[in-house]
């Protein structure tokens, strides 16, 4: 029963969940474990990590050494299926191609969506991050606070498995005992970077990533997650026993056949399916929420990609979890006499306030790390440590010239050589070749360090999506999005600050940065490149200025919820996925409660 088609699915469900990634996976998991019957609709194909993950394959087995191409933008072995910034047959429109104003939209058409390849960085938003406007007057506050979401961060960490540590730093929350797994041990470059950054007053602490550094506690965690629900505990305990801990090799971006990291397909969906409450239809491209005569959503309309036919599925509740912009697109395409500008859009805010993460990177080369003996530094696949934002007080005092912070992800070490090894070394070798070149590649291998700033963007009126007024449609005949984008001076200055900071750290290591770009407009990656896009159906306390309430419930349609990043009214520097899962779990709990009370 679990994988169904248009023909084999049941007539009615309690809840339809559109999308199968972090938001859809979490929503469906919570609902199914607590007894609701769910139909999940995924636009992409079925995907089976145990059989399809290239774990130990090496670059010589791949075309072009596995290098990036438009068909595999993160390299041949990246887990993404039928995805990227361009998806064949599914265009979108930009108002400009310029660096400053372009937005590139990443999609993955596969079961589990982007969770199959993501970086697994799992940071909690802090208390400031839910109330940014109260703090500095810019953007929007969330209608909920850290204390509302904290119990759900706990739950998600206990379920998916996140390594990290509790450091008690400002706006960088601790987790309760037992929530986090031990962090991996540092490699040589971690020690050097930490020492150098700390001399500059920058904290360096273990990262938080959804990777099992040891097996999950299958006795305690299921009881904590599903108190009083023996069946859910039993299912989850069995599932946790079948997830292997990390084997300290192979890039997480390929996915993980032994289920040592979090993917929706390996963590959320298996126990949800084991309840018998979940049906999944893949190749089901939802384009519209159907509105009943009573003003309630009565289901969704979708294209069955395998046959091209248009289908309708109905349920008591509809949850959009299709990714921020796709959920906004579905709403905008759901037009009716009562909602001529799109469903749940009486505020006019659907599609508005799209945010990405501010991204800027610097590479450095460090003599102390040259010619080290052979070391296995695969570890937990990099980013074992990070630098949380450390200048909250200086920023609040107006000393920085930009209003929001960033954290620093960094990596180094003797990672698996590949198509970029030995590339562009002229800045160090002066262009030699022959025996000397070979010696130089050996000398420099493992001596590079990479710093990536990941910062908060403030929502603005000029970054939004709408249905393309030019009438472009995708190959299914569904109207596509047009994106508008603009950074503010806050983001540009932040990017320039990242560059200067990384240069300082590299020099403190005795190293040499390859290039420091102090012009923020050039230093900042174009919109959509960091793939942290959120907003488009923001939550708020005022129905006139937001699309959903704090429970992810649309103001206009009581049985329509949005549990993905679309509801974020701000985009903290913390990577959004953990927060998406936490608010999805919270919304699902709310839906369950309302279903029990027959209010939905």
């Amino acid at each position, binding site marked *: 029963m679990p994988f169904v088609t248009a023909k084999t699915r049941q007539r009615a469900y309690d809840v339809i969940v559109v999308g199968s990634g972090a938001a859809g996976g979490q929503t469906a998991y919570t609902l199914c474990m607590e007894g609701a019957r769910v139909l999940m609709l995924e636009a992409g194909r079925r995907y089976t990590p145990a059989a399809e*993950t*290239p774990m130990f*394959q*090496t670059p*010589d*087995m*791949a075309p*072009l*050494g596995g*290098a990036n*191409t*438009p*068909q*595999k*933008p993160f390299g*041949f*072995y*990246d887990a993404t*299926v*039928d995805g990227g910034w361009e998806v064949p047959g599914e265009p979108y429109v930009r108002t400009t191609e310029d660096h400053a104003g372009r937005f590139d939209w990443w999609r993955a058409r596969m079961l589990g969506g982007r969770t199959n390849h993501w970086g697994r960085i799992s940071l909690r938003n802090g208390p400031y991050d839910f109330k940014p406007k109260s703090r500095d007057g810019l953007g929007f506050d969330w209608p909920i606070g850290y204390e509302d979401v904290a119990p759900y961060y706990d739950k998600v960490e206990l379920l998916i498995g996140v390594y990290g540590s509790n450091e008690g730093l400002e706006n960088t929350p601790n987790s309760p005992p037992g929530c986090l797994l031990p962090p*991996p*041990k540092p*490699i*040589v470059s971690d*020690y*050097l970077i930490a020492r150098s950054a700390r001399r500059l007053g920058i904290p360096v602490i273990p990262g938080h990533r959804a990777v099992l550094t040891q097996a999950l506690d299958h006795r305690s965690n299921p009881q904590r997650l599903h108190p009083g629900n023996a069946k859910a505990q039993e299912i989850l305990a069995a599932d946790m026993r079948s997830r292997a801990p*990390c*084997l300290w*090799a*192979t*890039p997480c*971006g390929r996915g993980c056949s032994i289920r040592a990291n979090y993917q929706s397909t390996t963590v959320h969906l298996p126990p949800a399916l084991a309840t018998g409450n979940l049906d999944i239809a893949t190749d089901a491209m939802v384009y519209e929420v159907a509105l009943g005569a009573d003003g309630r959503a009565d289901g969704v309309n979708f294209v069955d990609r395998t046959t091209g036919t248009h289908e309708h599925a109905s349920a008591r509740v509809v949850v959009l979890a299709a990714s921020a912009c796709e959920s906004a697109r579905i709403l905008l395409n759901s037009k009716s006499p009562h909602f001529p500008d799109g469903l749940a859009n009486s505020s006019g805010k659907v599609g508005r306030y799209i945010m990405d993460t501010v991204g800027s*990177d610097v590479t450095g080369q460090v003599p*102390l790390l040259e010619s080290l003996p*052979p*070391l*296995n530094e*695969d*570890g937990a696949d990099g980013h074992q440590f990070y630098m949380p934002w450390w200048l909250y007080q200086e920023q609040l005092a107006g000393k920085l010239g930009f209003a929001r912070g960033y954290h620093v992800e960094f990596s180094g070490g*003797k990672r*698996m*050589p590949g*198509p*970029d*090894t*030995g*590339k562009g070394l*002229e800045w160090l070798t*002066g*262009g*030699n*070749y*022959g*025996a000397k*070149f070979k010696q130089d*590649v*050996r000398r420099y*291998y493992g001596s590079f360090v990479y710093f990536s700033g990941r910062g908060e963007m403030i929502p603005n009126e000029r970054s939004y999506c709408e249905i393309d007024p030019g009438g472009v449609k995708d190959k299914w005949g569904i109207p596509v999005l047009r994106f508008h984008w603009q950074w503010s001076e806050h983001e540009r200055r932040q990017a320039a600050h990242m560059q200067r900071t990384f240069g300082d750290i590299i020099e403190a290591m005795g190293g040499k940065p390859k290039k420091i770009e102090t012009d923020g407009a050039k230093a900042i990656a*174009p919109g959509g*490149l960091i793939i942290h896009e959120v907003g488009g159906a923001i939550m708020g306390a005022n129905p006139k200025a937001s699309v959903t309430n704090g429970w992810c419930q649309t103001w206009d349609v009581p049985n329509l919820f949005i549990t993905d990043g679309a509801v974020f009214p701000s985009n903290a520097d913390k990577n959004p996925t953990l927060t998406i899962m936490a608010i999805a779990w919270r919304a699902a709990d709310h839906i369950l409660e309302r279903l029990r009370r027959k209010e939905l």
Partner: protein
Amino acid sequence: MDRRTTVKWMLAASAAWPAWRAGLAAQTPPGAAPSQLPAAPGYGTDPDLVTPHKRGEFWPLTLSAAQRRLAAVLSDLIIPADEHSPSASAVGVADFIDEWVSAPYPTQQGDRPIVLQGFAWLDAEGARRLGKGFAALDAATQTAICDSICDATRAAPERRDAARFFALYRDLTAAAFYSSPAGRKDLGYIGNVPLTSFDGAPPELLKRLKLT
């Protein structure tokens, strides 16, 4: 995942794709493999990731026998055999180069005319000096030619294009060589093996580097 590279690709691809196509017809050297390739679908957005692939499996290799010979000779000048590892040609770098310049993607198709024109320039330079193609020259002459183009910052103005070619070709040779098992061994890479625990940096090394 290397987002730096991705960003560069994004920017380069969107800007460069039509530009190089427009410039190709005029630049194709007579008698060489065609610069303009027939449209090929590539490996698609859902290739089999588990089975190892062979060069030429997804798109035809297009270099002539003479070009492949030149590719091998030049790559061995860049990465010769030494006491640690074999030469570039011994690990199949010519196959990699052929696959690269024959691939239907923007980066690779942008590299193709640079490589083909570079090959033609090398042969012309050999003919000018000793009346032979580059591959048939003695090692000293080959080295002298490479010395004149290996550093773009010092190359004579009329050799800038050739120097740009050499820098690209060195990158491609390195990509091919260090993607191979011999290249990984040359660098002492000992990862990509399952471990029951990860111990991090060895204490004695940290002590030597004064990091403890």
